[in-house]
């Protein structure tokens, strides 16, 4: 080869251009590769969960800020963002990735390495508070984690304490005033952990120190309060956004669904020892070594982790006040508690989940108490959903059930119909749990249900009540039919809603009508309902005419 030009032109320039054409330009010319729609799980008016082709949503300003933090801190070196259709990834994390999910990603964050798990489907898997604990120090919640801590995403203020009227209180400190607004009328609970670390998310209010949860009077002379910066809020908002273009997919996610609720596990020493190992690796950060819900991460969490010493459990098939069955705990461990820091544990082996339940039972002698044991209530098959049933449900919600008193929505004020904001009924601000901490009444329009997303889950909660919380059992006050009706009504409130941003999706009425038809089946996301293909009248999702119809 004598000619440098040949090398430069053919090899240097020619082949790379050919490759860029074949491997770069041609794939990009495919319309699918530039798609901005995804298949999204939505709840229909008749409370079924179905898949629909729907436009992906761009990041909000806060989420975009979080994405920048994610890039800056190099999160993407260890966390991939695509779920492959192989190696069981769709059973571990969730549905396989679609092109439309990346429509707004520049640069893309696929990543090539997983030192931590894939994050495509992490949105709303954990609560914001869990993420705040996790980014402050990952080992607080996952003892075996090797993820770095990110303390610079938090404001920190060290405050000295002094005794006032026999109680520890903040010493007057200008630093405290720099952080908190001290606006009258709003209390911000500061619940330090045993190491003197306390987390607060809010700043607009009066910080109130509370040591009631700690078993022994603390000897600490100062505590450190940590608060998320806007960057931390952004990062968490971004993480919560991941995968949420697929809507309520998690409610259809098979690996974390549990139907069985009664079985027994032999309470052998071996099982309990195994359970302890599991507990110390997975649970101790929040629930604490003593099982009292005072783990080092607990200060970050709201709602607080369960205190196993009291043997009080919310989600059961047993009557109000009774201990849960082992199956109940197994369901809670497997599917987690949506909207709280309790994640689903479907990934860990079944035996570990069973063993840890046995160990958790060792924290309280009440499990031996005969009087607390009760047979499970019967959970009949649900009736078929119908518009009539839902309308009936609404009436009972307002009249016999008076659910609006806490949960808001349509209700009464001075014997006249009145609509309260969802989740904020007239008694909502006064709600306290059995330990004296403020409770939030569930906002039914979000579609996030702690006890489970099926109508039977709501029915069960209505029938058994939630021990330790303000939710009573309605088993004696309402008939079975009435409870089913309310359950369907409650579920229907989250029809066509976006659980992330808590707003309604923009879907034209004709499309909704088509989806509401029980005969329309969308068994998998690949068979999602496509309004464009089946309803020629309806404009393409995302286009202007589509949105106009939506208005």
């Amino acid at each position, binding site marked *: 080869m004598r000619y440098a030009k040949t*090398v430069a032109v053919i090899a240097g320039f020619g*082949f790379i251009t050919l490759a860029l054409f074949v491997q770069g330009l041609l794939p990009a010319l495919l319309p699918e590769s530039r798609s901005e729609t995804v298949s999204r799980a939505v709840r229909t008016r008749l409370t079924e969960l179905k898949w629909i082709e729907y436009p992906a949503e761009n990041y909000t300003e806060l989420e975009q800020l979080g994405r920048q933090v994610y890039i800056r*801190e190099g999160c993407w070196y260890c966390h991939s963002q695509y779920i492959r259709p192989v190696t069981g990834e769709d059973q571990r994390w969730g549905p396989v990735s679609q092109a439309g999910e990346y429509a707004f990603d520049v640069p893309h964050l*696929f990543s090539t390495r997983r030192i931590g798990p894939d994050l495509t489907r992490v949105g709303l898997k954990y609560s914001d508070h869990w993420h705040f604990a996790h980014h402050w120090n990952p*080992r607080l919640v996952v003892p075996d*984690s090797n993820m770095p801590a990110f303390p610079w995403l938090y404001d920190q203020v060290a405050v000295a304490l002094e005794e006032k009227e026999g109680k520890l209180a903040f010493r007057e400190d200008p630093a405290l005033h720099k952080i908190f607004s001290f606006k009258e009328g709003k209390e911000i609970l500061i619940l330090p952990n045993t190491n003197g670390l306390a987390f607060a998310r809010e700043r607009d209010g009066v910080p109130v120190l509370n040591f009631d949860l700690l078993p022994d009077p603390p000897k600490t002379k100062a505590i450190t309060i940590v608060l998320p910066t806007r960057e931390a809020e952004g990062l968490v908002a971004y993480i919560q956004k991941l995968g949420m273009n697929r809507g309520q997919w998690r409610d259809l996610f098979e690996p974390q669904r549990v139907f069985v609720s009664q079985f027994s596990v032999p309470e052998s020493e071996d099982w309990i020892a195994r359970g302890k190992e599991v507990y110390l690796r997975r649970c101790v950060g929040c629930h604490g070594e003593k099982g009292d819900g005072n783990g080092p991460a607990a200060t970050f969490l709201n709602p607080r982790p369960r205190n196993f010493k009291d043997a009080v459990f919310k989600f059961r098939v047993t009557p109000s006040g009774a201990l849960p069955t082992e199956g109940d705990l197994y369901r809670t461990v497997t599917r987690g508690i949506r909207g709280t820091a309790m994640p689903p544990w479907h990934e860990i082996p079944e035996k570990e989940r069973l063993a840890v339940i046995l160990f958790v039972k060792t924290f309280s002698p009440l499990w031996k108490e005969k009087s607390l044991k009760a047979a499970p209530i019967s959970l009949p098959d649900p009736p078929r959903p119908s518009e009539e049933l839902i309308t009936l449900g609404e009436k009972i919600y307002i009249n016999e059930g008076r659910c609006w008193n806490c949960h808001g929505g349509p209700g009464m004020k001075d014997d006249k119909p009145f609509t309260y904001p969802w989740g904020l009924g007239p008694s909502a601000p006064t709600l306290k749990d059995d330990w004296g901490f403020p409770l939030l009444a569930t906002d039914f329009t979000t579609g996030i249900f702690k006890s489970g997303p099926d109508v039977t889950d709501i029915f069960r909660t209505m029938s058994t009540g939630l021990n330790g919380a303000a939710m009573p059992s309605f088993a004696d006050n309402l008939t079975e039919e009435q409870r089913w009706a309310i359950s369907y009504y409650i579920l229907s409130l989250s029809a066509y809603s976006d659980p992330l941003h808590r707003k309604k999706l923009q879907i034209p009425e004709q499309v909704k009508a088509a989806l509401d038809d029980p005969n329309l089946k969308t068994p998998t996301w690949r068979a999602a309902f496509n309004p464009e293909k089946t309803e020629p009248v309806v404009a393409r999702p995302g286009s202007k005419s589509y949105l106009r119809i939506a208005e």
Partner: protein
Amino acid sequence: MAEQVIQTDDEVINKELIKSWLLWGFVWVLFAPTLGVIVSTKFTYPEFLQGLPELTFGRLRPIHVNGVIFGTFSTLFIGLCYYIVPKLTQVRIYKEEWGYPLLWIWNFNLIAGFVSLALGYNQGLEAAEFPLVIDIIIWIALLAITVQFLVTVARRKESGLYVSLWYLIAALVWMDINWPFGNFIISYAIPGINNAALHGLYIHYIVGLWITPAGYVLIYYFLPASVRNPLYSHKLSLIGFWSLALFYPFVGIHHYLYSPIADWAETISIVMSILLIVPVWTVLQNFFGTMIGRWQGFGSNLTAKFLITGSLMYLVGCFQGSTEALRALQQPTHFTDFVIAHSHLTIFGTFVLWALGGVVYVWPRITGRELLSFRLANWGFWLITAGISAMGLILTTQGLQQGYMLMTGAEWVDSLVTMQPYWWFRTFSGISMDVGMDLILLSLLWGRKSAAAQPSLAQPAQTAGVAA
């Protein structure tokens, strides 16, 4: 042509310039791999250097990777080219005086780039992390270097064009095209999965169309020169060159198999990845062929030892690279340390080793200093070899283990815990590599003033081989 004699007079080279470039290369030899050890310690001991944002894993990892690619390897490579190109063309470098400003621009720009990465200015694409300003300066420097070398080649006194120069020309042109493509275009435009597909191409152009041909420039020159044997086959060089030029540009999407990127594009990248065995085995045959009849002196020829060890690593690393592109192997191994084994075996095990081989050859010739101690340097060589071999083995094993664990449904954190002992060994293997390189640099920098009588430097005109 093959029997042509290369002049040993050093009229055409600028020793001071080469020395300065290599010295900066030594800085990066010390810096970037050491950072790898620090980063790897964080796998097993995450509290290590915890608390300062600038020292977290996510900030240090890109400095390690870019440091090795653009610092350690590329700086040594450019420095060695200031030696190789005049030798092969028999003319001085065009605009030789640019060499000094380029030296300072290149290296201070790298420093600025690493500081920016530590401060969190990251473009968010692997191998294109440096912020835009840094990218622009790198591009300008690359263009200037391209002008220097290409004009030098055009003005050459040799009528033939030795294979090293083909690769040099191609590497420079490829890099000049690829650099703005990755850093100016896809970092800021073309959203979604197309961004990923194009980034796959970019990232593999960095390794396949910059590091690989650059490495070939070095070994094609230094192997025949150091063992004083003609190149085994020029026909094989031709096959190797053109097959590389044809296949390599198509492989990039194999980084994102099973993603929403079109299946047929993924398949093309897999086919091309397997076809890469052609250039790899061809050039390796050429290298091992060149050794025929020269194995006797091999043990005491440090340059050849580095080059041949690097070639062995290349054989293993590239076979791994081609096969892991196959869907069946990709399933367990992708996202695991198997891929990291591949990248270390090739980038460090091959290309950094080849560059070190070149350094060991050139440094005494431009400074007139012999190795402080052959034994010391030889220890360095063996520590490096043992380290990278162990690292390749460890990472490959753990990648397979974690991959199959996950395929059979292991919980994520459980799979991490299983990796911990491997990661400890990986850190130690990295330390071994670092200490080895320190010993090499030590014996070069503190070398003995050589008398003219010393054989290795006063060797007669190297017969043959390098010019063709």
